[in-house]
């Protein structure tokens, strides 16, 4: 039975989503429980999968027993397994949080559908990370874009609708260039399976160098549009800023990351390091990511809306991850992959606590949060912990990834990027810390009032994320050791 875990992680959320739509779209409390159970099971299943990968190497599953290149194949290596565990754990926490709060944010009529959409998005994320077939990846990517855009627009207010349209149009541009890239690569190699493409690519490059280069370019454009690297980030702040809390958390923490996982697979497994270092990809990626880091942080300072600010901070953090990839060194890549995890934890925590505070106080403005920390200690402590981790204070997880990124920059002989990281940490401090300080030590302009109760699910979710922030700061060896063999293989150390 254990071999069927791989398809089950995609089938289970899909089946749950359609069961919700079939049986209880009106009774959202059942939908709530069903999705909580489903994500809980997913955490268990992905952990089993990660263990299998650790013991036996990559897990391979052929659908319908058709072996590739004819059939669709799931290949879960260490990077994918790492990402799968992360996705299911974070979405479990977000669902836990949403159970206490969501019915106050979204019309009751669509709540059941909201959970179904969430699970479909989750299925597509898990599918993208595990599939080894390019077209299959493309279909999952499209499912994820459409359901993510729907999760933004679900409230039906003006801003969210506009953001959703913007997101949809731009992500269609991204998927258009991805599909062109897939067409190109199928034309020159004749395969859609990543493993087979990787084998056939050197020969194809000798015959049709222009096509292969165009493919690489189109992949870069498509995936950077979808993951909102700096010049293509314009859709992100609106979409993530105006969505309901749990949607923003998932979009910022997981959805933009999954495209980076695809990017990693393509760059290091298909095109390979040798090929990539011949083309000026490194320069482009580093330039774009440095701009993303600096300008994302600068734009975040200007924001007064707390969720908008967090969204701009995501733009900067995506820059970190792409910088780690662009350095093309072992430590840089390790930093990037660790930052995918650490940023997911931090950003989920920040968005959830900010959403909770907005719901409790009714205010979105940063300046009106003075003195809130004394009235609602738990969400504000979570927010502060997230802020400190974002700045990169040592025992917390944000420090670890920044450490490895800096090591990677030194290894690549580009110390200027260490400076970029330092400056941006300073900028992070500039927009996060005043909120924390004024929330705990500032004087509230309003008379003190009796605090509203915090839903129990929300408290548990925030505490879990707080513990994870500290845990991955202190025991960073666990993910590092897990990822090490895969990265060594890519860099042929």
């Amino acid at each position, binding site marked *: 039975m254990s071999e069927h875990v791989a398809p089950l992680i995609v089938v289970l959320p899909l089946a749950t989503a359609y069961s919700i739509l*079939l049986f209880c779209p009106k009774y959202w409390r059942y939908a709530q429980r069903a999705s909580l159970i489903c994500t809980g099971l997913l955490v268990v299943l992905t952990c089993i999968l990660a263990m299998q990968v650790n013991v036996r190497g990559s897990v391979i599953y052929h659908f*319908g027993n058709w072996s590739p290149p004819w059939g669709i194949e799931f290949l879960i290596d260490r990077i994918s397994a790492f990402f799968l565990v992360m996705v299911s754990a974070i979405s479990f926490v977000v669902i836990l949080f949403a159970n206490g709060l969501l019915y106050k944010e979204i019309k009751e009529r669509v709540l059941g559908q909201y959970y179904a959409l969430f699970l479909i998005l989750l299925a597509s994320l898990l599918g993208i990370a595990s599939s080894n077939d390019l077209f299959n990846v493309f279909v999952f990517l499209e499912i994820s874009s459409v359901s993510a855009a729907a999760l933004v627009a679900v409230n039906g207010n003006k801003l969210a609708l506009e953001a959703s349209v913007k997101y949809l149009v731009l992500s269609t541009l991204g998927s258009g260039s991805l599909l062109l890239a897939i067409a190109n690569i199928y034309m020159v190699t004749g395969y859609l399976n990543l493993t087979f493409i990787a084998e056939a690519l050197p020969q194809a490059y000798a015959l049709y160098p222009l096509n292969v280069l165009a493919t690489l370019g189109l992949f870069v454009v498509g995936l950077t549009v979808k993951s909102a690297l700096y010049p293509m980030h314009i859709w992100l702040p609106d979409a993530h800023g105006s969505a309901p809390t749990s949607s923003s958390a998932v979009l910022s923490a997981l959805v933009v990351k999954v495209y980076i996982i695809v990017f990693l697979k393509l760059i290091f497994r298909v095109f390979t390091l040798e090929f990539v270092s011949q083309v000026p990809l490194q320069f482009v990626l580093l330039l774009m990511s440095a701009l993303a880091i600096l300008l994302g942080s600068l734009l975040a300072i200007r924001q007064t809306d707390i969720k908008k600010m967090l969204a701009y901070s995501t733009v900067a953090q995506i820059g970190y991850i792409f910088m780690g990839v662009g350095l093309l060194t072992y430590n840089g890549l390790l930093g990037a992959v660790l930052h995918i995890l650490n940023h997911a934890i931090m950003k989920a925590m920040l968005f959830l606590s900010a959403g909770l505070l907005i719901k409790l106080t009714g205010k979105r403005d940063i300046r009106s949060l003075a003195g809130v920390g004394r009235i609602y200690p738990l969400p504000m402590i979570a927010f502060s912990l997230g802020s400190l981790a974002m700045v990169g204070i040592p025992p917390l997880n944000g420090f670890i990834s920044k450490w490895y990124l800096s090591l990677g920059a030194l290894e690549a002989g580009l110390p200027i990027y260490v400076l970029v990281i330092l400056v941006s940490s300073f900028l992070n401090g500039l927009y996060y810390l005043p909120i924390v300080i004024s929330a705990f030590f500032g004087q509230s302009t309003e008379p003190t009032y009796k605090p509203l109760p915090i839903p129990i699910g929300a408290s548990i979710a925030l505490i879990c994320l707080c513990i994870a922030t500290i845990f991955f700061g202190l025991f960073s060896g666990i993910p590092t050791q897990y990822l090490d063999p895969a990265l060594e293989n890519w860099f042929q150390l």
Partner: protein
Amino acid sequence: MRDLIIRVISRFMIPFIQVYGAYIVLYGHLSPGGGFAGGTVIASSIILYILAYGLLSEEKRIPEHFTRVVESAGALFYVFVGLLGVLLGTRFLGNSVAGFPLGIPGRLSSGGTIFLLTFAIGMKVASTMITLFSHLIDEEREEG
């Protein structure tokens, strides 16, 4: 829109369109076509009906919850057929390897589970198309 010619002709055409759609769905494993194409054809007959006769009152229309049930049931049926492969001891979506009879090539009964899968897709696509159309029409009517 209340044109007599359109109404009479569409009344005459709709059954043929539906039979043709059903043919494309059911023969998806033998000839070009399949669940998506056939489902769209079936849905287009309903759309034609709505266009020709105008929006009907609530009780004369295909109820929304019916299309929703068909849609989700189609998706769940697909998953169920896929899981049959696992239950019979092979992989997800396993077909002949799971012991489904392949039949004589060219007959309707050939192809193992593919027939069931296209049927599920046809169910899902037809009902989705109808839902999409009626939602867009409803939005328009609400504000107009």
